[in-house]
């Protein structure tokens, strides 16, 4: 009970901080950080929705992101949509993202492990090649967004709130999925797909559904990113570094947890943006990104949230018999998914 109060209190404080952020820091250079941080919180959480829960590591999340950006740009220019009306196109962008995710899943989800990862890389490069070579995507020039006549000083703030809304929405979806039978089925697939299948989980359908949800969110936030920057090129919309950065965020914070990708995004995105401003050479941030990644995986393979959670639990239970610890863990409800629910539990078995 006390834990729950503390947890919801902390959550409320965090939300208030996030909402108040652009009121406190009005400098556009600072709010720019905020917009990007929220965009990446959304993408990392969306990535985690599918990959973190199902265990299928997606190294082509930029397929959705870039497609969303291009879809918004093409629709806006094709139908002469301008100003704030452009945001009304976002549901259509999401629909396109869903279509891409569906086809992607139908092709790639037949294979597992390494092969799946390689397929996601291949699909990613197919999309990049298409963006470079199709006539309507304008090759290396890319697309420009319609003009948005918002005042220069307050330009970032509305984008910040839109991205924040997406971030909160994605986290809420992640939370709902975690508590649902659907989430349990996904995690059963991650632990042992064959056994989950044997227990009646419609694995293929469940995986595709998760991928589609992830794709819809990512393509929509990709459209917002495009409208915020006013431009997209094949190498920025479909960026291999983007794919890796998202995965780094999730692994840094805690792969498969809800708070992990959020924390990871809040650390990595402002960090890399700041670094890119400090050192104008892209390669330095590339080396640092790779180095941080190596350190994280070697020293903290499970990420900050699960590792810290374990530490805190150890501290709180210090001096008490080990048996009590083992009993008190499940009672805490939102504990990290270690040990995972055995796929043979009743809920999964009933999911037919």
């Amino acid at each position, binding site marked *: 009970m006390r834990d729950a109060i503390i947890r919801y209190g902390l959550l409320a404080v965090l939300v208030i901080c996030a909402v108040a952020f652009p009121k406190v820091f009005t400098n556009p250079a600072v709010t720019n950080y905020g917009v990007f941080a929220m965009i990446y919180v959304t993408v990392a959480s969306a990535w985690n929705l599918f990959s973190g829960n199902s*265990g299928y590591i997606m*190294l082509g999340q930029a397929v959705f992101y870039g497609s969303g950006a291009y879809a918004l740009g093409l629709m806006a220019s094709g139908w002469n949509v301008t100003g704030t009306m452009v945001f009304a196109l976002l549901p259509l962008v999401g629909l396109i993202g869903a279509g891409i995710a569906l086809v992607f899943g139908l092709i790639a989800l037949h294979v597992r492990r*390494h092969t799946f*990862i390689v397929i996601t890389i291949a699909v990613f*490069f197919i999309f990049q090649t298409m963006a470079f*070579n199709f006539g309507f995507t304008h090759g290396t020039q890319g697309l420009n967004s319609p003009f948005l006549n918002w005042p220069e000083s307050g330009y970032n703030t509305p984008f910040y709130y839109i991205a924040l809304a997406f971030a909160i929405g994605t986290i809420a979806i992640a939370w709902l999925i975690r508590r649902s039978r659907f989430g349990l089925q996904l995690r059963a697939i991650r632990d042992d797909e064959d056994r989950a299948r044997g227990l009646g989980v419609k694995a293929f359908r469940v995986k595709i559904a998760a991928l589609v949800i992830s794709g819809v969110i990512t393509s929509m936030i990709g459209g917002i990113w495009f409208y915020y920057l006013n431009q997209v090129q094949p190498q920025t919309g479909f960026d291999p570094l983007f794919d*890796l950065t998202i995965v780094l965020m999730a692994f840094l914070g805690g792969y498969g947890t809800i708070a992990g990708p959020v924390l990871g995004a809040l650390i990595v995105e402002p960090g890399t943006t700041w670094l890119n401003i400090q050192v104008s050479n892209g390669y330095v941030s590339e080396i640092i990104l790779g180095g941080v*990644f190596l350190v994280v*995986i070697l020293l903290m393979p499970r990420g900050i949230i699960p590792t810290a959670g374990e530490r805190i639990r150890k501290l709180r239970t210090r001096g008490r018999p080990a048996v009590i610890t083992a009993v008190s863990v499940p009672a805490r409800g939102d504990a990290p998914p270690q040990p995972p629910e055995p796929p043979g539990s009743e809920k999964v078995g009933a999911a037919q």
Partner: protein
Amino acid sequence: MARELYQAIVDGILVGGVYALMAVGLTLIFGVLDIINIAQGVLVILGAYLSYTLFTDLHIDLFIGLLITVPAMFILGVVIHAAFIRWLRDTERTAMTLLVTYAVALIIEGALYWKYGANPVQVNTPYDSPSESVRVFGFYIQDLYIYGFILAVALVVAIYALLFRTRFGRAVRATMLDESSARLVGIEVNRVAALTFGIGVAVTAAGGMLYGATNAFNANSGYDLISRLLAIVILGGLGSIGGALAAAVFMITLESVVTIWQPNWAILVFYVALILVLLLRPQGMLGRKAVRSA
């Protein structure tokens, strides 16, 4: 037209031999360590830059330079394995190793940008001039392609001999089949893994030299290479050496033929073939059985 086609096929086979060499390294590493080395592409570029530096600064012949670069890359491979890969033992190992090698690739790529800048370079070899070419069946082929092909075939044969004619090779194949059983019969799996990783990386020195002598490259070319190599090893069946050889020659030839009509879209041949094969035959063209039965 027909002439262009034949030329494309000949080129494809010759270049395919070089890709086969790089792909064998990748598939060997997969077979023994159960990881995909994403850094293979950028390691090829590193090999290319090493040969480039030896040639332009020290005027060492490309093929003689391999005596330096191959051992250097072997040591680098062993070091990467010892420093990062050996420690990964977890349920999420598949993902972890991919990400670790991806991170290693990023660091090497960044370091190459730092040292050499972003402008593409090409090794201007004496083998490269138009006068240095031979006429085979009415086609002019540059010496470099011939020598390169011979070198690639020789190295692939050497790896094959190493795997199938030596005690170490038997240990490697045993580890590929079943790691814990190999451990039980007294094979030092860790050492086998380290040496295999070293060999898999060492071939990129030779592959990189040939790549750098026939293509303009910069640090970014690693992405293009790794995506091709991944398509090749998956097509051939992960862990299958024969499959990697066949897929490399087949895919590069196909790409070279498609380039005649559609230079911009030719790269898609790889991915489309990859997706088609996986839909029809998820274990790849030759699957993993090729290694076991051989």
